[in-house]
Each structure stands twice: as C-alpha cells, then as structure tokens.
C-alpha cells in the first residue's frame, strides 16, 4: 500500500478523499493556493503544502508545482479528485514518469476517453451507439455551419476536453452558432487549456443516465449500476439519484453491459463513469466517459455499500478487484443535492463572500460532504461547489422527504446558495413523479426567483430582526423570553405545521 497520498484538490472532494485515506491508515498531504490558506480541507490532512497564487493555473492546475509538492512531502501517490488535473493525461503521464502513482485511469485510457472526439470514434467502432455529430475537430466556422445544418438544429457545441458543462452551448438556430462556438472556445480554453470544440445533434428532453464502473489493473471490471442526473442547469448537474426512475431490470442490464463494453474498448482502469443520454423511446446513446471520481459518487456508495474512494486507492495500488457483478445489489434509494454558492433566483450567478453563520443538518440517513466552515470566505477563483447533501431511504418517495427535511434544516448565511432552490425542486410534483429530463429546470423553474414567496417565514424573520434590533446580541438579555405565552388569537393559529418542504 502507499506510504503517503497527496490530494491534488480542494474543497469538499479533498476532504472526502483525505478522510478515506485516514480510514485506511495512509498518511496524507493536502495542497492549497494563497486563496485557500484558511480552507477546511487543510485540517483534514496530516500536512499541507502551499502551491502558489490564487488563480488555478498557478496552483491547482500547475503540474510542476504539484509534482514538486509530492516530492517534497515524500508522497508516492496522487489522488486528483475531480476537476483540475483529474482528467489531464499529461499530468497522469508526468506522475508515472516521476514514480508517482496517479490514482485514476492509466494515462493511455485517460488520453483516449479525455478526447471526446476520439472516444466517439472508438465507441462507434466497438458497436456502441453514439449521438450523431462531427467526427473531427472543425477548423473553420464554415465547417461548423455545414455540420450543424446537416445535423439539423438544435445542435450542441461541446468542448473536446470538456466536462461539467464548461464550454457547452445549445444552439437552436444558425444565428447563434458563431457566438456559441466563440464562447465555447473561450470557456474551454480557460477551464481545460484546450480550446477545441465540436458539434453534436441535440437530443431533446433526454434523461442523463450514467453507469459507475470499477476496474482493476488486471482486466477485471464491474459496474455499480446507474445514477440519474437529469436535473441540470447550464449542463451542470444539481440533483442526482439512484436508482433511476426510468430504468427497469432489463434496460439496466443492457446499459450496464454497454458501459462495461465501453470501458473495455478504452482499456480503462480504476473508477470511471460512462455517461448516456436516454431518450423518450428508451434508446440510449454513449455520451462520454468521465475518467475520474464523480461529484455524485456518494449516491452509488449509499445504495451499493461500496466505498468508491477506497476502491480507487486499492486498484491504483495494484490490488485485484474482489467484487463480482453477480454479488452487487442496489438497496433502497439515494439522492444528492449539490449546494453551490450561487443565486438561483438570479440565473445561478456565482455568489462569493464570507460565510457568517452555518448550521448543518443532522438526521438519520443523511450524509453531508462539505468543504466549508463558518467564518470562511468563499473564493471567487474556483468552482462554486460548497457541499453535497446526500440522503438514503428505503424508497424514492421517502428519500425525497428526507432530503427536503434536511435541506430545511441547512442554514448558510452570508452568501446565496442553492439550498432553497433544491428544496423546491424536490417538492415539485413532476420531480416526485419521476418525470425528469435534462430540460426539467428550464421548463418548470425558469421563473423561480419571482414566484417564491412565503409570508409565514417572512413574518417570522421580521419579528426576529426587530427583536434583534432591540436586544442586540451580547446585551445581557440572552435567554430571557420577551413575553409569556400568547393568549389572544394570532395569525399563526390558522397555519398548518411549520415544517416545510414536505407534502401537506
């Protein structure tokens, strides 16, 4: 086993990986940028090394500094988390060359699946159905225009090195094509250092269903079933769950086998995810391979009971996979809601700032993967994910209720977050019915900020504010009730229970 693991990431995923290492008894080293000096992930590690200035290019994306940090700390393995260097085959190769084990796929497989265009070619050859689209990177705008016309609008512009929706744009008519390609290139360049984009046919109202795969270095491979991640904004997932309400045993089996075929064709090792789009007629298309641990991996962990990070580390250390497909089962239902520092009422604008107050939910069946703390300033430089709230319950309906209840008890003050928005999505009858697709938020929640209203909560907040104004904290009146029980009828009497986000 490894002597020491460097976790080349920040935030909640760094905390998650560091904890897994600790459970396995492996010493750890965290890395950080100047903007992250006070970040909670540093406290989850045995030691921490400063990489450089705040911009990711000078810190979390800087290969030389990352390798140097590993050498300095005496680490023999690197866990890249997700994002940053996690799907960078140059970095994986660099690690291999430096005698560092990259905890992820081998660099050849990473290179193949990381190049979305090459991956599509390989999968098409292996007999996996893919979404119609360009088979090579276009050189001119004219090429794009012709391809888009041939495919028929709407089309989707995608970054070849992409992931997480970065660089991705849906174009509904020719007029918007050039601007979308331009924006896609810029975003791809800044996020991945590679500005290649290409065009695919846009499948309308599909479900996003992905399969988790685990492979060892000895040719053994299993899948850990699906995750449905159809609730997305800007092509970024917001809510993920497993099992998918859209799959039955037969379809699950077929998609699972296809996922294994994809990974075998890529010569894949370690943990990875095969993403599919599932259309209304239950046809599924290979989308891409995410060659890393996914943000949404906890839902799989909760229904299969398998610790994916631990399995990644074991596989990277060369240990043979001990899981057998026929032994794996899905038990109950798990849902994850992503807590972003974003203002959902204003088009999900990032909301940086200081966390003035934090109260986390503690319920049975609730898991919170978090990278924040009270008093901590959310930097503007990185992805705005703060935490993930994941619940497990016996069935989907119970899991929805549990997540809604936990979200109601989750308070982050000082910045805008997606907590309330998530609760309203979970409470939506169409979501409850399992009728989800990737256009779900656009259809049902595009005017969310304007229609949300809750007079009871508002009145309570105002009462507390007025009280606070008259009795400032620390004025010595703490814990002294301002009045005794109410006697006359009050507007509260006509209200139902005060628990919210649950069906009444």
């Amino acid at each position, binding site marked *: 086993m490894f002597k020491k693991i460097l976790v080349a990431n920040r935030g909640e995923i760094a905390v998650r990986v560091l904890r897994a290492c600790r459970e396995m008894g492996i010493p750890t080293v965290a890395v950080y940028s100047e903007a992250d000096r006070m970040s909670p992930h540093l406290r989850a590690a045995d030691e921490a090394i400063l990489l450089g200035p705040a911009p990711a290019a000078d810190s979390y994306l800087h290969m030389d500094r990352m390798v140097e940090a590993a050498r300095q700390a005496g680490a023999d393995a690197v866990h890249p988390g997700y994002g940053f260097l996690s799907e960078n085959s140059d970095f994986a190769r660099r690690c291999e060359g430096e005698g560092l084990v990259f905890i992820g796929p081998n660099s050849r497989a990473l290179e193949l699946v990381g190049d979305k265009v090459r991956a599509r070619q390989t999968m098409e050859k292996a007999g996996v159905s893919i979404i119609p689209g360009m088979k090579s990177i276009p050189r001119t705008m004219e090429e794009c225009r012709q391809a888009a016309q041939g495919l028929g609008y709407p089309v989707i512009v995608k970054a070849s090195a992409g992931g997480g929706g970065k660089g991705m744009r849906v174009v509904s008519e020719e007029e918007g094509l050039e601007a979308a390609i331009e924006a896609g290139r810029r975003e791809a360049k800044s996020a991945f250092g590679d500005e290649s984009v290409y065009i695919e046919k846009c499948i309308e109202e599909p479900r996003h269903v992905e399969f988790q795969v685990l492979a060892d270095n000895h040719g053994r491979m299993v899948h850990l079933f699906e995750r449905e991640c159809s609730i997305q904004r800007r092509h970024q997932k917001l809510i993920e769950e497993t099992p998918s309400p859209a799959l039955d045993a037969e379809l699950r089996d077929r998609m699972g086998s296809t996922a294994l075929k994809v990974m075998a064709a890529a010569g894949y090792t370690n943990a990875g995810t095969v993403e599919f789009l599932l259309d209304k007629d239950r046809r599924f298309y290979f989308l891409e391979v995410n060659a890393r641990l996914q943000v949404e991996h906890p839902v799989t962990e909760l229904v299969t009971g398998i610790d994916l990070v631990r399995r990644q580390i074991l596989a990277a250390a060369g240990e043979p996979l001990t899981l057998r497909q026929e032994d794996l089962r899905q038990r109950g239902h798990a849902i994850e809601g992503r807590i972003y520092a974003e203002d959902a009422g204003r088009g999900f604008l990032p909301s940086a700032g200081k966390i003035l*107050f934090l109260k986390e939910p503690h319920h049975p069946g609730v898991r919170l993967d978090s990278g924040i703390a009270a008093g901590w300033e959310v930097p503007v430089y990185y992805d705005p994910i703060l935490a993930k709230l994941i619940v497990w319950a016996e069935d989907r309906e119970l899991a929805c209720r549990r997540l809604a209840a936990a979200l109601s008890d989750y308070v982050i003050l000082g910045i805008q977050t997606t907590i*309330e928005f998530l609760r309203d999505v979970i409470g939506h009858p169409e979501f409850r019915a399992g009728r989800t697709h990737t256009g779900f938020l656009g259809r049902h929640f595009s005017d969310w900020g304007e229609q949300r209203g809750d007079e009871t909560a508002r009145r309570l907040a105002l009462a507390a504010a007025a009280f*606070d104004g008259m009795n400032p904290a620390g004025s010595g009146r703490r814990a002294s009730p301002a009045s005794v029980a109410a006697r006359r009828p009050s507007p509260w009497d006509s209200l139902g229970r005060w628990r919210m986000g649950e069906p009444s």
Partner: protein
Amino acid sequence: MEHEYILDGIHRTVSLEKKEGRTILREGGVEFEAEIRRISENEIEVRAGGRSCTVSLAGDGPRRFLNALGRSFVLSEPSRDSSRFAGSEDKEVGQAAAIKAPMPGRVIKVSVSEGQTVRKHQSLLIVEAMKMENDIRSPLNGVVKKIHVSAGEIVDSEKILVELEPEAQEAAAG
C-alpha cells in the same frame, strides 16, 4: 417601537411592543403576540400560537441575512439600502442607467462600444466568475454612453461597467 426594513426589495414596517411582559408584534396590518428569545448570538426563537421556529441571522455591514423555516432573506434598512439589483438598470446620473457587475469577476469581452445603439436584452459584455461566463445584457433600448471597463479587467461586485442612455421614448415614458 417601529422598525423599517427592506426585505427582498419590499418596504416593511414591524412594530414590536412590550406590554406587561408580553410582546405584541404588528406587521402588514396584522397584530399578534409572540414569545421571542435569543438562543445564541445568531439564533432567535420565535414562539407563537403554540409553535416554535428558530430564526438564524447574521449581519454584514448594512445587510442582514436571515433564515426562517428554511427560507433565506436579505434585509437592509431603508436609509442605507444596498440591495441594488445587479446587472439591471440603476438610475443615478440623470436618466442614464448604470450597469453594474453582478459579482466579482473578470471582464472577458466587451461587445459594445461608446455611442452604439443597443436593444433590450442585447449582450453588453461578458464577465467570468468561478469559471462560468455570465452574459450581461442591456435592460433597455438605448445608447451606450460610457464604458468603464476593458477586457481582462478584474471587477468587484457593484462596480459600474457600462452607462446607458435610454431611448428618448422610453425615457419619456419612464
């Protein structure tokens, strides 16, 4: 004692009166009794009608953040209201509208030039924050009066990016 607040952009008046050990609240024409106590520096419990709710609150300069029943509110006092709508018009200099940065970030593209006529919803500039591009669009038909930033510049939240002169008709109507 009366308290005035701006909550989600709406003016609210709450009065909180202590009478013989009881607290009587008036808000929006409704009067009721409540039992209110501080639980901790950031938490206040409000009890009324036999039910209890813990309201969390924290301040940041003129703004206060509150959460009740899982709903968040930003509250400010009218005299020093800072809850301006970002990215939208803000009449300051005569009839000109100032377009402000909705969040701290980096200007990556300025799509218009001074003197240019713009349509409502037309893209003015693109500001990147947290790796996402945010298209700042014009809230009105008008003319670009002044551009305060250039591509590559790092901007703070609320920084004026562009000033617009509304179209004559609209200015007259508004």
